[in-house]
């Protein structure tokens, strides 16, 4: 059987699993009105976030292998008649890893502060996990004559919850560094806390543009604001340019993604831990406590993808054709089908963004520490401030957001043009001096600069 066929079949299986789970979430919340929130907590956070995060541990190994032309883990097998001959995409390694983590020695260094040492993984894991509570996963629709919102909590302060809870995660890392009674771990914890605190400013500023554009801090309203079209091309099929955050605020998206990346402490910004060479804040942790740090990193990846999806990629909304879909006979009679479709779309976007983060991790080299701080304070912060002012002015000038979208499209176009433009671009180089401009041209340019 062809490999593309197997992959497409696996993707369809995953889509089916997501759709059926979301259907269970909608109907469970409708059938049990008193425990509806509990059903959503269990299905959205425990099932979806935890399963995606734990599958990301194996996906990271497998995807990074594919990006680096390797095969990746495929040795763990399930010893059952049919499954024995298949590596199952390396997924059995997940169970092997979990068993290994659980049965390793739970080591506490001598003279370490035992209470804080045990508290740190919990503090690193809890806030990250709680962040997902405000993410709207699907539309609020009527199921079995009951209005079912597919979001765990809608506090009035909306996005501010995100900032508040995200900044709590720094306690986990700095406590882990401090309580280990290890100088290197302490230094790692200091690096982690200073990096996370610096990037929180940029993280907050990056989202202000979207708050201005839709004049709300509530994530469900931000999502629904992105459902409309800035320019409608076809009324019948509901085609048009959606008012997604990536169109309105491309700079905001880049800033947010970068800052949130620094918050997750993953590779371009992995100075606090450094998987391979720098000794990080969790040197002294072993077994499942280390596993907590690791899984919290992956939960952060999922939550970051979910927040980016919600704020910049239209949340659970389709870019076009949603109105057309909602008017179909079957879906108009049973609106829960639309809810399942849209929430599946949400999870697809989340998974794609998770993949993007992993691709970023395996593409970019790590920044030096001064570069991290310079990027945070000298680049992201001024850019964020400028973005806020420009976005505010544009929204005041044209409340229909079209001016904002035009500016955003121009920004996207400039970056795309610079990216796609071919190699033949020697205009700015001092290469006219020598016919084959190799290294001499480079040195000549730099020395003339010194003159």
């Amino acid at each position, binding site marked *: 059987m062809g490999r593309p066929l197997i992959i497409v079949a696996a993707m369809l299986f995953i889509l089916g699993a997501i759709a059926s789970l979301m259907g269970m979430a909608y109907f469970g919340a409708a059938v049990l009105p008193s425990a509806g929130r509990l059903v959503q907590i269990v299905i959205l956070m425990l099932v979806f976030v935890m399963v995606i995060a734990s599958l990301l541990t194996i996906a990271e190994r497998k995807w990074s292998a*594919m990006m680096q032309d*390797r095969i990746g883990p495929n040795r763990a097998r399930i010893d059952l008649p049919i499954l024995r001959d298949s590596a199952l995409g390396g997924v059995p390694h997940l169970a092997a890893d979990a068993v290994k983590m659980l049965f390793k020695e739970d080591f506490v260094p001598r003279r370490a502060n035992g209470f804080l040492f045990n508290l740190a993984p919990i503090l690193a894991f809890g806030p990250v996990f709680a962040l997902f509570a405000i993410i709207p996963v699907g539309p609020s629709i009527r199921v079995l004559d009951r209005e079912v919102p597919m979001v765990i909590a809608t506090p009035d302060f909306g996005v501010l919850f995100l900032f508040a809870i995200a900044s709590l995660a720094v306690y986990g890392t700095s406590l882990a560094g401090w309580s280990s009674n290890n100088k290197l771990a302490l230094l790692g914890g200091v690096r982690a806390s200073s990096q996370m605190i610096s990037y929180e400013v940029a993280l907050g500023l990056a989202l202000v543009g979207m708050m201005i554009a839709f004049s709300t801090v509530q994530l469900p309203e931000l999502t629904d604001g992105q459902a409309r079209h800035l320019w409608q091309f076809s009324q019948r099929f509901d085609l048009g340019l959606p008012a997604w955050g990536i169109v309105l605020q491309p700079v905001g998206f880049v800033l947010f993604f970068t800052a949130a990346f620094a918050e997750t402490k993953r590779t371009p910004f992995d100075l606090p831990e450094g998987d391979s060479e720098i000794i990080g804040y969790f040197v002294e942790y072993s077994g499942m406590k280390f596993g907590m740090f690791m899984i919290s990193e992956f939960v952060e990846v999922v939550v970051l993808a979910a927040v980016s999806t919600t704020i910049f990629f239209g949340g659970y909304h389709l870019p076009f054709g949603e109105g057309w879909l909602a008017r179909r006979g079957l879906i108009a009679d049973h609106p829960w089908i639309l809810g399942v479709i849209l929430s599946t779309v949400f999870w697809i976007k989340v998974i794609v963004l998770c993949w993007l983060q992993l*691709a970023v991790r395996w593409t970019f080299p790590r920044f030096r520490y001064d570069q991290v701080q310079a990027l945070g304070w000298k680049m992201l912060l001024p850019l964020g401030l400028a973005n806020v002012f420009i976005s505010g002015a544009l929204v005041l000038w044209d409340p229909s957001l079209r001016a904002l979208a035009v500016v955003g499209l121009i920004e996207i176009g400039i970056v795309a043009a*610079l990216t796609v433009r071919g190699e033949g671009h020697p205009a700015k180089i001092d290469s006219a001096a020598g016919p084959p401009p*190799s290294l001499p041209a480079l040195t000549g340019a730099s020395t003339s600069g010194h003159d």
Partner: protein
Amino acid sequence: MAYDASRNPSQDVRERIYLPELLRGLAVTTRHFLRNLFGQRDSNASVLNRKGRSLVTTVQYPEERVAYPPGYRGLHRLVPREDGKPRCVACYMCATVCPAQCIYIEAGEYDPADPSPESRVIEKFPTTFVIDELRCIVCGLCVEACPKDAIRMDTATHAPSEYTRQGFVYDIPKLLNGPPVSHSSDPWRRRESSEPPEHQVLEPHTRIGET
């Protein structure tokens, strides 16, 4: 997409903005990812000859093995004659030349009254021929020293693992394998008359698996 060293990064607008170059890097990663995700991996053990979209060059070792190059000095074998007995005449040349002294031979003598034809032309044969494969340094001198082409290292395998040291001491039943080899100069095939031989002379450098 090779990097052009003649460009000065500090003067290139794309490098200064940094984002376009990051996106190009992502494009490279993505291309590799998609090719390896959807491309069927060719399991040809000679990696350079692999076909298909997949760029993976891994050889999954126990299942796929890179063949040893020609001329590889593998595990010894005692070359059999057509009748299945070893060609060895117990001359002790290999045991003498062996720098690791890993070959031990005990010679037996053909009874002149023996009715078999070779008893008239061959004096000795090995009753014991033992190679300690743990001692062997795989230099191949025994093969070169042998005047009768009786010991070869053309098996293209290495010594398999064993649980005991004694398991690595190979005796005649373990060593005697592979295709038989005959030379027209073999004394036991010396003809009395000028008639052509009744059996076909095999190519002298037959390897295992080629016949």
